[in-house]
């Protein structure tokens, strides 16, 4: 089966900056795919390369097995939901949604009918005659979605689609986007800097850093088996032990990561469980998160580790500034590749 989107050794350089650095990846048909990374990691440039707003300096981009590397945006079967929606202010909501049909010279009646259908799909039928400036942020988002879907593209690209929405709206839209994708069976590719969003929505996630693809895996694998220090820290902010600390704790100079919820914390006076990896430190801060509390512990060497505690009883005999012992099972330590000092 051919991939809906394929990157073959794609690079894009702006002056001295390698915005995208030799990226190769495949996105399957019907997949809900996330590109995750901090700002400047190259994820948005990748999206723009797929849309055709930018042309790679090196490599090829294939859509459904066809080379589209140099094609202009209007010759690609791909549509985009822009971060700030990019609605046309001089057109009504209906005209915005119908635009893709209008420029393809679809009959006027047909334009109106299908645009209304699309607006109903995103539950905005009642606002068809409004101007974009008269809508709320969430409504604009839906218009932008309807406009991008009207041409029934093979692939829908979403650039930070939920970034501008408040928390409650964002959670609603997450569910709605998932439903929409299942309903339409279109490949969705969305760019985000929010690891929670990527993990909860995507089938697979590509993690970018400095223009390079760090890891491409399912959310579960990404979280439980991060391949590099960057992924371990960026996705779920794991504790990372560098080469030196690893040697002290395990005897082997192999960097590893361990999740905060896998670390147990106890007063330094009590002996640690046998067989566990353990280290001593000082409790610096406790952040209350409701179901759990996050304890920040400074190790003897100065490194900061975080332990997530769900049973408040565990914290009863510890106060801020008190010496504590952290311990975890050797199985929960994930070895990392790459230089971590």
């Amino acid at each position, binding site marked *: 089966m051919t991939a809906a989107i394929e990157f073959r050794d794609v690079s894009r350089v702006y002056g001295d900056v390698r915005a995208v650095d030799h990226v190769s990846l495949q996105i399957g048909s019907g997949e809900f795919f996330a590109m995750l990374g901090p700002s400047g990691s190259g994820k948005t440039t990748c999206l723009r390369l797929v849309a055709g*707003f930018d042309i790679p300096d090196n490599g090829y981009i294939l859509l459904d097995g066809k080379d589209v590397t140099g094609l202009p945006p*209007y010759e690609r079967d791909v*549509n*985009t939901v822009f971060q700030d929606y*990019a609605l*046309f202010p001089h057109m009504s909501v209906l005209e915005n949604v119908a*635009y*893709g049909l*209008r420029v393809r010279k679809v009959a006027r009646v047909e334009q109106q009918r299908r645009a209304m259908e699309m607006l109903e799909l995103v539950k905005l039928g009642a606002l068809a005659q409004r101007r974009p400036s008269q809508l709320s942020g969430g409504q604009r988002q839906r218009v932008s979605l309807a406009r991008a879907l009207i041409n029934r593209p093979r692939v829908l690209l979403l650039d930070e689609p939920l970034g501008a929405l408040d928390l409650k709206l964002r959670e609603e839209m997450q569910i709605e986007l998932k439903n929409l994708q299942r309903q339409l069976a279109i490949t969705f590719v969305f760019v985000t800097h929010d690891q929670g969003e990527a993990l909860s929505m995507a089938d697979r996630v590509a993690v970018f850093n400095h223009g390079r693809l760090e890891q491409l895996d399912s959310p579960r694998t990404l979280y439980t088996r991060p391949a590099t220090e960057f992924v371990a820290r960026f996705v779920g902010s794991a504790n990372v032990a560098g080469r030196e600390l690893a040697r002290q704790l395990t005897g082997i100079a192999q960097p590893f990561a361990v999740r905060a919820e896998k670390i147990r914390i106890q007063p330094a006076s009590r002996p640690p469980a046998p067989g566990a990896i353990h280290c001593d430190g000082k409790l610096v801060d406790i952040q209350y998160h409701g179901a759990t509390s996050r304890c920040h512990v400074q190790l003897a060497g100065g490194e900061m580790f975080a332990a997530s505690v769900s049973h408040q009883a565990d914290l009863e005999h510890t106060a801020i500034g008190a010496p504590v012992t952290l311990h975890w099972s050797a199985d929960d330590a994930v070895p990392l590749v790459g230089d971590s000092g």
Partner: protein
Amino acid sequence: MRSDARSNRASWPTRLGALFGLAFLNLPVLVIILYAFTTDDRTYAFPLPGVTLHWFEAALARSDIWAAMRLSLGVAALATLFAIILGTLTALALARSRFWGREAITFVLILPIALPGIVTGIALLAAIKAAHVDPGFWTIVAGHTTFCTVIVYNNVVARLRRMPHNWIEASMDLGADGAQTFRYIVLPQMATALLAGGMLAFALSFDEIIVTLFTAGHDETLPIWFFNELFRPRERPITNVVAVIVMAVTLLPILLAYYLTRPAEEQT
């Protein structure tokens, strides 16, 4: 609150100042209008010795006035048309792209308006002579097009720079090619800027005299007609009558443009 209510009203020295400013700007215009109706044909005597509509009748009978008016309107219309085409194309080319020499092009482009009109005039005259072209209607149009283009360019480029680039990307993303994107997205967005630039260009061309003197040959545009008329001692109020007519004619499009551009401003 009391202080708020008071701050909404200007203090009396401010109001007096504003009144003086308005009077300073507009009294000379009132004088022109007033002396279009005087019975005295040589001096600006005050109070008027008598009131008459005779000069309107006399102006209507003078074919040279209407020839000058037609010439000025024709030149202004064509110069504005060419300026809109050239200015818009230049603005589209320079608004987004970055290339070596872009600043230099911008500088050379605004030169006709930065230089004194007399320099532009002499330069054009020299060029016309060198090209062995007879000065006339088309040389005036060409001369006016130089500075009118700058006006249109400045208006349009400012608007284009304020326009988010992702509107163009969104349009192309949805399947519109360059021409469709221009027609459906860019043109509606810059329409009011074009209108304002065009109006200004028209007005500038309509009362331009310096560049016209060098490029006109024997043709008499309205400003040149006014200028020549000052040296004739008789029938002085006729110039005032023509000035009143010109005012009435130019006021209409100004009010129209004001009315047309208002809702567009409210949209954004």
